Every structure is written in structure tokens, then in C-alpha cells.
């Protein structure tokens, strides 16, 4: 299990990017999503975010995702970077 020990962020608010913030939590994954394409792709984005968190072993965290039309591989990258920064090993 990976513990998020401090607040961290990754990404930008530029087009095709996504800004991810993560902070310690105690009630599972508490995910907040804002996206310009939330109506069409909200569930898919959330699924990718949860999948990466799961792969990284994060079970408890507050996660804010502000999407600017990022592709799957970009979302994966920013979530992974935020986790690595939040667990304090990068």
C-alpha cells in the first residue's frame, strides 16, 4: 500500500493537459472531477484515475482532477506523477 503523506500536484491547466492534486485521506478514494468534456467522458476519466491509483497502491486519498481535454495517457501520467510526489519519493 502506498500512503500519501503530503499534498502534491502535477500537470497544468493548458489545453490537452490535466491538473491533478492529491492529499492524504482516510476514507478511501475521494475523487472530485472537473472537465470540459465531463458530460461525455466523465466516467471514463474517473475510471482511468482510479485504475492508476490502484496500480500505484493508493487506497486512501483526496484527489482533485481538473481536466482540459487530456488524452488517457496524459491523465495516467499526471496521476502517477502526483502520487509519486505525494508519497515523497521523487
Amino acid at each position, binding site marked *: 500500500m502506498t500512503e500519501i503523506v503530503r499534498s502534491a500536484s*502535477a500537470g497544468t491547466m*493548458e489545453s490537452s*493537459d490535466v491538473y491533478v492534486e492529491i492529499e492524504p485521506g482516510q476514507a478511501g478514494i475521494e475523487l472530485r472531477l472537473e472537465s470540459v468534456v465531463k458530460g461525455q467522458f466523465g466516467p471514463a476519466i474517473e475510471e482511468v484515475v482510479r485504475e492508476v491509483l490502484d496500480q500505484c497502491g493508493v487506497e486512501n486519498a483526496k484527489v482533485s482532477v481538473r481536466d482540459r481535454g487530456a*488524452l488517457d*495517457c496524459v491523465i*495516467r501520467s499526471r496521476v502517477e*506523477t502526483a502520487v*509519486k510526489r505525494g508519497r515523497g519519493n521523487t
Partner: protein
Amino acid sequence: MRRSLLFLPGNTPNMLINGSCLGSDAVIFDLEDAVSPAEKDAARILVRNTMTYMDFRGCETIVRINGIDTPYWQEDLDEVLPCRPNLILLPKTGTAADVQTADAYMTQVEQRLGLAPNTVGLVALIETALGVENAFAIASASPRVTALFLGAEDLTADLQCKRTKESREIEYARTRLVVAARAAGVDVYDTPFTDVNDDEGIEVDALHAKALGFTGKASISPRHVEVINRVFSPSQADIDYAYEVMEAIRIGKEQGKGAVALRGKMIDAPIVARAQRTIAMAQELGLGREEA
């Protein structure tokens, strides 16, 4: 075939995800100058995932890692080598030992990944006076080295001279690198033309690089890719002449002639070799003839 090599900043998604659609023969994911120290970790992951999830068929992938004098370069290689980019671009290569240091670590990572040695090639970016002076030794330092690459912006800073559009200040470095690369049997790529709005200037600069013997040219702007590709492609006249040469050689052999002439000029081995290179490139571009 690498006529054009387009730099893409390693932490900028909207450039990276479109990289394969911009017409260049190769893209260079830049983890060095285009990425601030605080974002090196993010860029590595983004470049790794871009290579993993995006389709770059028909476009070679090159990663410019950070220099071996920084704390970043080994982590760069750890992250990107599993994606098997075609090449690693090593900045500020000054000596053969620099190549050997990077080569040794790449070999370690390849072994760890179960890859054959030299699966991923190395291009030495020459951008210091020391690198220019050691160009042949660098090009010959390891079988992993597939090309030299001139970086004129840093070089002119090191030379303590001004970088100009006329580029007289880098003429020695250009010719030195071409000679060193050809002597070592590797390719050689020219520095980008940095005025992205000067359409005439890029053409003049690319034509000059081609005339000196460069294999291709780097670009920092997608706008320059089409011009570079055109300049570094054989013209129809070049292709027609190459086929004429090969036909003249074929007829000469049939007739048992020791020497063959075409258009009043003797065809010797270098002319045949050039014709063969032209035809090979034409075929790769879909411009060749079926009977060749």
C-alpha cells in the same frame, strides 16, 4: 531514413500527442532544455506513457536525455528505455569517455530488461568546442553510436561568438562533424534553424547543410518539417540520373566494358555508390521504379 528530426518539449502534452502527425521522419522527446528541473519527473513519465500508448509507426522516436553531468540522466534512461525508443540523444557529448559512460549504463539497463545489447542506438549531440575537436573519437567510441548531431546554440555560446542567420561562425564545426561522421561510418544531423517565421531562411540553411553532406536536419518547429523533407529528398532529376547510371553500368557489364561513360563523363565507383543511395532513398519514399 531521417531527413527531418523534430524536437518536442517533453512536458507539453498538446505537442507530444500530435508528434507523429507533423510529418517529420523522427521526433525528439526533449527531457533536457525544454523541461525545468522541477518538472523532470513529470516529463519522464509523460514521455514514457506517450511512447507506450500513442502510435508512432512511420515516425522514429528519439529521446534527448539530460547530460551525464546532471543528476537526471540515469533516471531518464531507466524510465524510457523499456519503451525502446529508436535512439537516445546524449547532450553535450565532449569526449569518447562521455559516450562510454552512457553506453555502459544503457547496456546495464538493456540487460535488466532482457534486451539485446545496442537495441537502442545513441546519437552524440556535439555542442561544445571540446566535442567538435573530439568528433571522430566520439563517433568511433562505441558501436552504439549511429550519428553525430550538431547543436549550434550552445556551441556558439561556448565559442564566445554570436549566433547569426548566415552561420559563418559554425561553418568549421559543420564541416568537421560531417568529415568525422563519414570517416566513422555514421550519419550526421544539422542544427535547427531557429527563426520559425523565416520560410526563406530555413530553405537556404537546409540546402547548405545538404550540400555539406549532412544526412538530415533538426527542427524546433513543425513549420520547417516540409521544407527539410523536400530539401533532403532526392529530386526527380537525381532519381532519373541514378537509374541512368545503373542502366549504363548494366549495359557496360553485358558488353564486357571495363570503363563506362554517361553523358560524356566516366562513371566510377563513387558515382555508382551515390546512385545506389539515391535509388534506395527513392524507393523508401515510394518514388522508385519497379524494375530497379
